[in-house]
C-alpha cells in the first residue's frame, strides 16, 4: 500500500474569501491529503462545507490563500509561465455539476469537445481533429452524428456525457468531478457512473469525486474524505469508513442516509452531531491523526487515545 505513487499532494491548503473583512469565510481551512495514481478519492460533506471549493482550488480556478498543491511533483499555484500553465491544464480537467450551464449553448458539440484539442494543438489536420471528436463521442456512448448538434438538443445525461468527452479530449491524468451526477435522474446516474468507472479502467485515470450522495460515493471511490466546515475530519478507505466511522460527524452523516430498504429504515437510529462534544482547549493541537492504519481522523491527542481504545482491534 505504501508503495503507491502519489499523483497529487495537498498540503495545508487554505482558501479564505473576503480576507480582512468582517465577513471573512474560511471555506477551506488547513486541509491536507494525497491522491494516489489510479484511485478515486471521494469527497463528501453537507453543502457549504468546502468540498467544491477544495476541488476548484486544486485546479486553480481560485488562487489558494495558503498551502500547496503538488501535482506530479510541481506546485500548481504560484508563478507559472504560459507554457507551464498549459501543460498543467492539459493534465488536470474538471467535470461540472450542471451540464446545461457548463456547456456553451452557442457552440456545436464538436467545437465544445475540440476546444482543448485546438488550444493544445493536438490535431494536425481538420480531418484528424474530427476523427478525435468522433472517437471521443463514441467513447462516452454517443454517436458521431451528434457532433454537429447544439447542447440544447440533448437530455441531461447526454449533456453530462459531452462534459466528460470534453474533459477527456486532452488526455488528462487527473479529473475532478464536482457533483457530476447530482443533477441527473436515478436511472441516468447509473449510466454516467458506469461510464466513469469504465473510462478509469481503460485509461488509468485518477478521479477526485465530489458529491453529497453517499451511496454513489461509496460505490465509486477507493477512499473517502469527509469535510465539515472547511476541515477534513476523516479520511479512510471507503469500506472502512462505512463500517467503522470514527469521527462523530461522520457517524451522524452516515446515520442520516436513508437506505432503499424499508426493513432497515424502520430500525434506523439517527445520531446527532454536536460540535461541542470535542471541547478542545485553547491552543490544543488538533490535527489529522492516524487512528488505525490508513484511517485518519481530525482529533486531539486525548481523543486519539480514546478512539484507538475503542476502534483498534
Amino acid at each position, binding site marked *: 500500500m505504501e508503495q503507491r505513487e502519489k499523483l497529487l499532494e495537498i498540503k495545508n491548503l487554505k482558501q479564505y474569501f473576503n480576507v480582512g473583512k468582517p465577513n471573512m469565510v474560511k471555506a477551506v481551512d488547513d486541509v491536507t491529503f494525497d491522491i494516489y495514481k489510479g484511485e478515486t478519492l471521494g469527497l463528501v460533506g453537507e453543502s457549504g462545507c468546502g468540498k467544491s471549493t477544495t476541488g476548484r482550488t486544486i485546479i486553480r480556478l481560485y488562487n489558494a490563500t495558503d498551502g500547496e498543491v503538488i501535482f506530479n511533483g510541481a506546485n500548481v499555484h504560484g508563478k507559472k509561465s504560459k507554457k507551464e500553465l498549459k501543460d498543467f491544464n492539459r493534465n488536470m480537467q474538471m467535470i461540472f455539476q450542471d451540464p446545461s450551464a457548463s456547456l456553451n449553448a452557442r457552440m456545436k458539440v464538436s467545437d465544445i469537445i475540440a476546444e482543448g484539442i485546438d488550444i493544445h494543438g493536438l490535431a494536425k489536420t481538420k480531418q484528424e481533429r474530427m476523427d478525435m471528436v468522433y472517437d471521443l463521442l463514441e467513447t462516452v456512448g454517443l454517436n458521431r452524428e451528434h457532433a454537429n448538434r447544439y447542447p440544447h438538443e440533448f437530455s441531461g445525461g447526454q449533456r453530462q456525457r459531452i462534459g466528460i468527452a470534453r474533459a477527456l479530449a486532452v488526455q488528462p491524468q487527473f479529473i475532478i468531478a464536482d457533483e457530476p451526477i447530482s443533477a441527473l435522474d*436515478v436511472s441516468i446516474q*447509473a449510466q454516467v457512473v458506469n461510464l466513469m*468507472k469504465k473510462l478509469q479502467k481503460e485509461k488509468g485515470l485518477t478521479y477526485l469525486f465530489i458529491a453529497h450522495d453517499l451511496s454513489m460515493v*461509496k460505490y465509486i471511490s477507493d477512499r473517502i474524505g469527509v469535510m465539515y466546515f472547511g476541515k477534513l475530519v476523516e479520511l479512510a478507505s471507503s469500506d472502512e469508513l462505512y463500517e467503522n466511522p470514527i469521527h462523530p460527524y461522520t457517524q451522524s452523516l452516515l446515520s442520516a442516509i*436513508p437506505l432503499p430498504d424499508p426493513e*432497515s429504515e424502520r430500525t434506523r437510529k439517527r445520531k446527532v452531531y454536536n460540535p461541542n462534544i470535542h471541547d478542545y482547549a485553547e491552543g490544543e493541537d488538533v490535527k489529522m491523526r492516524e487512528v488505525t492504519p490508513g484511517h485518519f481522523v481530525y482529533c486531539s491527542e486525548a481523543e486519539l487515545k480514546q478512539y484507538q481504545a475503542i476502534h483498534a482491534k
Partner: protein
Amino acid sequence: MEKILEVKDLEISFHTFGGEVQAIRGVSFDLIKGETLAIVGESGSGKSVTTKSIMRLLPESNSEIKGGQILFDGKDLAKLKDKQMQGIRGKDISMIFQDPMTSLNPTIKIGKQIMEPIIKHQNVGKATAKERALELLRLVGIPNPEQRFQQYPHQFSGGMRQRVVIAIALACNPKVLIADEPTTALDVTIQAQILELMKDLQKKIDTSIIFITHDLGVVANVADRVAVMYGGKIVEVGTVDEVFYNPKHPYTWGLISSMPSLDAKDEALYAIPGTPPDLLNPPKGDAFAPRNAYAMKIDLEEQPPMFKVSDTHYAATWLLHPDAPKVEPPEAVKRRMKKFLSEQEGK
C-alpha cells in the same frame, strides 16, 4: 380503510407549439386516511403534474384535464370552479414544495405568511391567528418563535425555511398534505430531520400524505404504500414491502438495481438504457418497452392492464399475464426477494 381521496382515470394534456403532450394517461389511485403514499418516478413521468392537478395548480392557459375524476369529500375537484377550489386549497388539501427558497415570499415576514391561511380559512382575528402561528412555529421545531416571527425568509437556513413552509401547509390541519420533493434541496442530515418532523406531525394531526420523490431511500423511510410512475401512468402500486421486496414491473426492477447496494461493489451498476418516452407522440404499446430488456412482442402493440398480484399489489406488465414466459429478475432484485421470502417464512 377509509378512502379520503380517489383519483380515477385521470388524463391531462398540455398544449404546446409542438402539439399535445399527454402528460398523464389514465392514472387511478386511492389515498387512505392516515397513510403516506409515495409516488416515485423520473422527471417527466408525471408525478408532479398528477399532484398539481389535485390542487388545481396547473396553468389554465395551456393545460387541460381531458378526463377522469378527482373525488374528495364527495366533490369532483377536477370540475370545481376556481372560487370553490379556493375554499379547499390550503385548508383541506395543502402542499409543500421542493424549493423552500422560492415557495416563500422574500418580502413578507414569515409570521405574516403563516397567518395568511389561518385568517383566510378560519375566520379568526389577527390576535388569535398570531397565537396559532406561534404555536405552529413551536410545533415544527423552530427555536425562539417570538423573535423568528418578525424575520424574513432570507434570515433562515434552508432546513428552517422548509419548516416554515411545513408550518404554513399545516396551518389549517389539512386532511391531505401533498409534499412534492420536500427534501430534495436539503442536505442528508437536514433531510433526516425534516422527514422525522413530518412523520411526527402526521401522527399528531392525523393527516394523509402524498409524498413525491425520486429517492428510493426516502420512500423506504416514509411510505406506507408506493406508486411507481412511468410515462404518465402508474406502472406498479403496492405496500412499501411489496414494492421493495417483491417488485413485479421491469421498470421497478431497473430503478431498484440502479441504486448501488452497500455490499456489491465490483459489479457494474445496472443502468436502464435509453431515455424516457416522448409524450408528444406516446408509443402505441407499453411506454417502457423500448428500454425494457424483458419486452415481448405484445409490449410494442398493446398497453398492459393492471394485473393483480395481491389485494394491495398491482403491476402493469404483460409479464404477469398467465401466458407470459417466466423471466428472471436482475440479481439485485432477486437478492431482495429472497430476503423477503425468508422473512415471510419466519413469521
